[in-house]
């Protein structure tokens, strides 16, 4: 049973299409600022590619740093979309409805952003062709399928494709609505995208089945993607703290943790920006909060296991890295911040029903989680390299250069900008899904039997 008033279709269309049909005053200034940040970052990248990676803080033995950290972070964020849409859809969780679209879109954009990182971090990005695509068989240049660096792109591209399909399927009915509300060029474009949607029973049926099928198919992909990303580290035998067996599940849960938090935050933002109080309602955020308590605790278990196993082997070089993480500045400070922000602060906040329904507190909790999760990746990747192996003679520290900081910072601007621009052209809260959800609350009497107004997803 859901709360909130029942809205007429006209209302829904008016509200949810507001973001597209007229743009709020703050919109373009914000986009402009973001664009400026991106411009600076692209110049930084230009210089970096031209001069060489010397402009970063990387060295020997710390050959991976901020870029890879950020890559893993965005992959993590991307896990929210499918997590919510697919699982909740299969689980028929009613409250999911307004959240799904924003979640899925966030998946797409964070995936795209994540993919930028490993490319700019390579020494010769323009030669990526060599490995992602075996472009010339005659000369025998096949990619090396034994390396996680080839598993990565395959997994991520698969995930990207399926998520895109997922989004489009869900969008078709809304395209139709948009088609009916626009004129001129926009009208023609939406007509094309709507693919002749009329909303008849057969189309609805196919659309819903497609959605359910995709949900089921996409779940294994979503689990595999972050497992494979984790193997970039798990398979690296030479770096003690990377070569951990628990990484795959640990990373997946971590990803869900940060991803769902991110989605919750985005929803709160949308509600605030476009005044969608009637669609993104407190009970939605509440539900996400409750889900997050479970996810966070699961993640915390893995964290403890990871450290426990690390210690258990009692190998001097592994202990040396742990010592670096726990005892030596600045890593020890970051480590405390990481654990507190990722688990204790948010969970403490989520435990109270009242706070779960307080959007400000919720936002703080969700941001806190993602600060922590970014640090988690950093604290996994860098210390393991700083104290690499037993050759204490060559141990060297790492500090990011302005270039790395700018480029990493810009990825956040990029995702935000893409989300905003998207909200300009497509509804970020699925019209039909919401309508459907409301319609389902109304039932019709036929003789003695009560039948739903429309058939349900099953």
């Amino acid at each position, binding site marked *: 049973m859901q709360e909130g008033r029942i809205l007429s279709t006209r209302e829904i269309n008016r509200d949810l299409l507001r973001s597209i049909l007229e743009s709020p005053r703050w919109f373009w200034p914000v986009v402009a600022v973001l664009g400026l940040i991106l411009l600076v970052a692209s110049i930084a990248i230009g210089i970096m590619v031209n*001069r*060489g*990676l*010397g402009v*970063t803080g*990387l*060295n*020997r*033995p710390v*050959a*991976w740093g901020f870029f890879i950290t950020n890559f893993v972070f965005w992959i993590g964020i991307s896990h929210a979309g499918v997590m919510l849409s697919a699982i909740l859809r299969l689980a028929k969780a009613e409250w999911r409805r307004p959240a799904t679209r924003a979640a899925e879109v966030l998946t797409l954009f964070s995936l795209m952003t994540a993919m930028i990182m*490993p490319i700019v*971090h*390579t*020494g*010769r*990005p323009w*030669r*990526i062709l*060599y*490995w992602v695509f075996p472009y010339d068989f005659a000369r025998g*240049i*096949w*990619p*090396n399928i*034994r*390396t*996680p*660096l*080839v598993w990565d792109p395959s997994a991520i591209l698969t995930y990207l494709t399926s998520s895109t399909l997922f989004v489009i399927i869900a969008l078709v009915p809304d395209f139709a609505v948009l088609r009916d509300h626009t004129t001129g060029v926009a009208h023609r474009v939406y007509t094309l995208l709507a693919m002749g949607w009329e909303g008849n029973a057969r189309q609805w049926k196919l659309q819903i089945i497609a959605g359910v099928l995709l949900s089921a198919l996409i779940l294994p992909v979503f689990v595999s993607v972050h497992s494979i990303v984790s193997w*970039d580290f798990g*398979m*690296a*035998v*030479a*770096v003690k703290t*990377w070569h951990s067996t628990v990484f795959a599940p640990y990373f997946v849960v971590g990803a869900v943790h940060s991803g769902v938090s991110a989605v919750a935050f985005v929803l709160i933002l949308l509600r605030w920006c476009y005044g969608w109080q009637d669609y993104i309602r407190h009970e939605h955020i509440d539900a996400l909060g409750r889900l997050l308590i479970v996810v966070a605790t699961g993640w915390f278990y893995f964290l403890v296991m990871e450290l426990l196993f690390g210690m258990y082997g009692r190998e001097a070089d592994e202990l040396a890295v742990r010592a670096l993480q726990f005892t030596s500045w600045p890593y020890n400070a970051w480590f405390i911040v990481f654990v507190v922000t990722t688990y204790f602060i948010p969970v403490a906040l989520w435990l109270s029903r009242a706070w779960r329904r307080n959007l400000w507190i919720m936002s703080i909790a969700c941001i806190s989680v993602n600060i922590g999760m970014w640090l988690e990746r950093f604290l996994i990747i860098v210390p393991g*390299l700083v104290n*690499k*192996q*037993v*050759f*204490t*003679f*060559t141990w*060297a520290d790492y500090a990011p250069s302005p270039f790395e900081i700018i480029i990493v910072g810009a990825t956040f601007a990029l995702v935000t900008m893409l989300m905003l621009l998207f909200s300009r052209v497509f509804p970020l809260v699925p019209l039909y899904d919401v309508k459907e959800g409301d319609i389902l609350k109304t039932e019709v009497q036929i003789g003695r039997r009560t039948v739903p107004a429309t058939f349900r997803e099953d």
Partner: protein
Amino acid sequence: MVTSRVDHKWGMVVDLDRCNGCQACVVACQVENNLPINDKNAFLQSRAYEWIRIERYWEGEYPNIKARFIPVLCQHCENAPCEPVCPVYATYHNDDGLNVQLYNRCVGTRYCINNCPYQVRFFNYWQPNWPERLQNQLNPDVSVRTRGITEKCTFCIQRLRRAELKVERQGGGKLNDTTLKAGNYMPACVQACPTNALVFGDQNDVQSPIQPYFDDVNRYDVHHEHERKTRGYRLLEEMNTKPNLIYLKKVEPNSVKGEHHG
């Protein structure tokens, strides 16, 4: 390209009891293999290139203190962790069992650098450059690397190829153990080393001076180290990278640490 190859299994023995840390091998390698000049920043940024390096370890306290020198170069692992992780096969095992680096192909992911337990892979963070006139010295047999790629010790493969050509020209047929012993092929660092701490040879050659050490170490694995008859061991043996280098332990009459279990 030399077509016909004899089955060699190149290997090196590093006698830590001979090495005196003089650095001659380091410079010899830099000269032979066109290593970029390490300016002050290379050291300040800990990005200096030394395909072979001398690690200095302190042991004990003044006045009973010792400095220990270990030459570390690519171990040419049979089971090289750097190889499977390279997406483009830029680093691979060649016909002679060397771990070689194909600079043209490297895209600079630096994964191999992370996955090399011995830290002997070097990334070109900047474009290497030499003053106009110094370029006359560059070895034409060795590619000059560009920025954004990884480089490493190749066991001086270009010298191996020259040796094969030379032997073939001399009508000696293929490079074989005898022609090898005639001093036709020696890596630059081995040739330079004044104390003969570095010995190079063919593990397939029964007469090779490195043979007894490889036999011994191969016979008794890391778990039976104490049964070994020689001072031989492999670096990070427990990682099972199966290096083609063997180290001979330093002999320490009056150790400042007392008896060592090894």
